């Protein structure tokens, strides 16, 4: 139970960081009082200087409330005061990458990338799995056999290689393609589990009772079958999300993930490999992937429902 609580706390923290990333890391103040006027530059968006130019322009009566990591994750600095690949310092808590970008800021915004891809892949895989399982169980016979065989084949597809090959074959890149290509093999795997669960539920006496009371086959399936498949779906969704986090990191490491300059944990790992394994690039990003994946897998392993 303690492990599960820790996992849920990790997931909540990751979700909060993902949602609040612009407020946690950025070069625009959360709140600014300048020349007597109060504003919220982080809400107002770009317009006027941010970061160091804004700091330099503040008068004696002006003040600004900055994000905890007051650096833009995409701001490239190749010269000047901040050297590329600078180790951690008071100014850059986790150092800078090979383009002088703040690693802490990119780590925080990378959380948003990983969480978004994991959540989208899990949602898409779950929706597809439910549709496929309902189709297989409702139609039965040859359709059921076809869905089962197709799912067996598709579920065996290796996620990373599938995404790489499909991007080259279809000539399309981007986050949406990555999400879809991670979700489809996982949907096939989840559909097999949901189908098996639905078939077990439909063979129970309470489903017989529902049929005897006049419920249509579709109603029995959706009203009585699906709720009992929800725990299986939740487990499958957690595994899909964990798979997506790992796959995204692997794809970004290979340079075929989210397009630049999107901040990504895998991109930080790729920079570490390309730059003599600088520890401030490798350790935080690797630890972040491990923590989020471990939390998702711990949720997936929680005690499941009893046998039907």
């Amino acid at each position: 139970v303690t492990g599960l609580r820790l996992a849920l706390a990790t997931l909540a923290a990751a979700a909060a960081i993902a949602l609040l990333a612009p407020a946690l890391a950025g070069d625009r103040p959360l709140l600014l009082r300048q020349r007597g006027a109060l504003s919220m530059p982080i809400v107002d968006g770009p317009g006027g200087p941010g970061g160091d130019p804004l700091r330099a322009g503040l008068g004696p009566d002006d003040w600004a409330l900055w994000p905890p990591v007051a650096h833009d994750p995409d701001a490239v600095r190749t010269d000047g005061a901040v050297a590329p690949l600078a180790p951690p310092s008071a100014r850059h808590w986790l150092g800078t990458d090979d383009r002088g970008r703040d690693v802490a800021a990119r780590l925080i915004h990378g959380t948003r990338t990983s969480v978004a891809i994991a959540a989208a892949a899990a949602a898409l895989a779950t929706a597809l799995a439910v549709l496929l399982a309902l189709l297989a169980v409702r139609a039965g016979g040859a359709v059921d056999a076809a869905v089962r065989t197709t799912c067996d084949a598709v579920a065996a597809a290796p996620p990373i290689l599938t995404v790489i090959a499909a991007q080259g074959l279809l000539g399309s890149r981007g986050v949406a393609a990555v999400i879809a290509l991670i979700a489809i093999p996982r949907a096939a795997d989840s559909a097999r589990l949901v189908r098996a669960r639905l078939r077990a539920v439909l063979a129970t006496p309470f489903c017989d009772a529902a049929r005897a009371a006049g419920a249509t086959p579709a109603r029995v399936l959706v009203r009585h079958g699906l709720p009992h498949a929800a725990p299986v779906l939740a487990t499958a969704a957690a595994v899909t999300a964990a798979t997506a986090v790992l796959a995204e990191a692997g794809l970004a490491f290979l340079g075929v993930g989210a397009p630049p300059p999107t901040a990504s944990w895998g991109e930080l790992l790729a920079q570490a490999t390309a730059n003599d394994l600088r520890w401030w690039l490798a350790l935080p990003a690797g630890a972040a992937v491990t923590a989020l994946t471990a939390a998702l897998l711990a949720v997936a392993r929680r005690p499941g429902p009893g046998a039907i």
Partner: protein
Amino acid sequence: VSARLIAARGLAVLIAAVAAYLLAWSLAELAPAPAAERAARAAGVLPPDDAGSTAVRAALIARAEARFELGGGAAARIGRAALRAIRLDAGASWRDGAPVAARLGPALAHSAAVAGPALVLAIAAGLGAGLVGGTGARRGGAGPALAAATALALAMPPVWVAQLVIGGGADGALAAAAVLALAPAAVIAAHVQAAQAGFLASAVATAIRARGASPRRLAWHHGLRLAIASLAPLAASTAAYLVGATAVVERAFGRPGLGRLAVDAAAAGDVPVLAALAAVAAAVIAALTGAADVAARAADPRLAEAP
């Protein structure tokens, strides 16, 4: 294990490879640009934008169409791919016209040098740790520790493990194989641990003990046979993981192989190479799944009667 079973699994490998090859060619037909234009672009002879003379562009595309036999509609191109598949001819790379087999062979050898030992290592380490953990779990010993180690191994991205290993000074093919083996070994260990604990608590184990078998023989002889038999359902996912993660681990260790070939081919849009890679990946996964099935039937005679 009958020759018929092995032949059936061999046929499944062939079918999987051909199906993946044709599926890849079919997917390529969904791309917005015509195949001949993509081939010319992959060869680098076509400007990336619509710059240049229209007549020159048309000539370059026509030349690529003739060189790579890309004329006709999608059905004709997929049909020609099917004929090539029957002849076991993967065609020529769109990038430089070299035979795909000449590109694939060396890359496959490099990847096999890492993935092969990784598979052996994963099975050996997973079986050993699972049997120790499953036997220890009955006595309240190594079970929880193994569960924690398994959870950590599954959560760590292979690239990060590779970086930690390289940072520690190990940089050879065996180190790459060990990194690649970590997650499959953890899955196998967890599976075997549960199977072993269940077996030792079963009436079958009690009966074997009653006939005079020592605890060691019970755990390591009878338990091992059943553990091997229980691995068959993991074969497909383990094979898929090895095929996919090899690309990442190879890159992390700076080694050539199928991973680099796939990334380069995808960047160039080299469909013949990608289709051949899909066929190889499907064949490897089907072959490992079939081999696991055959091994399971050999280890557990009760499975021999299954279809």
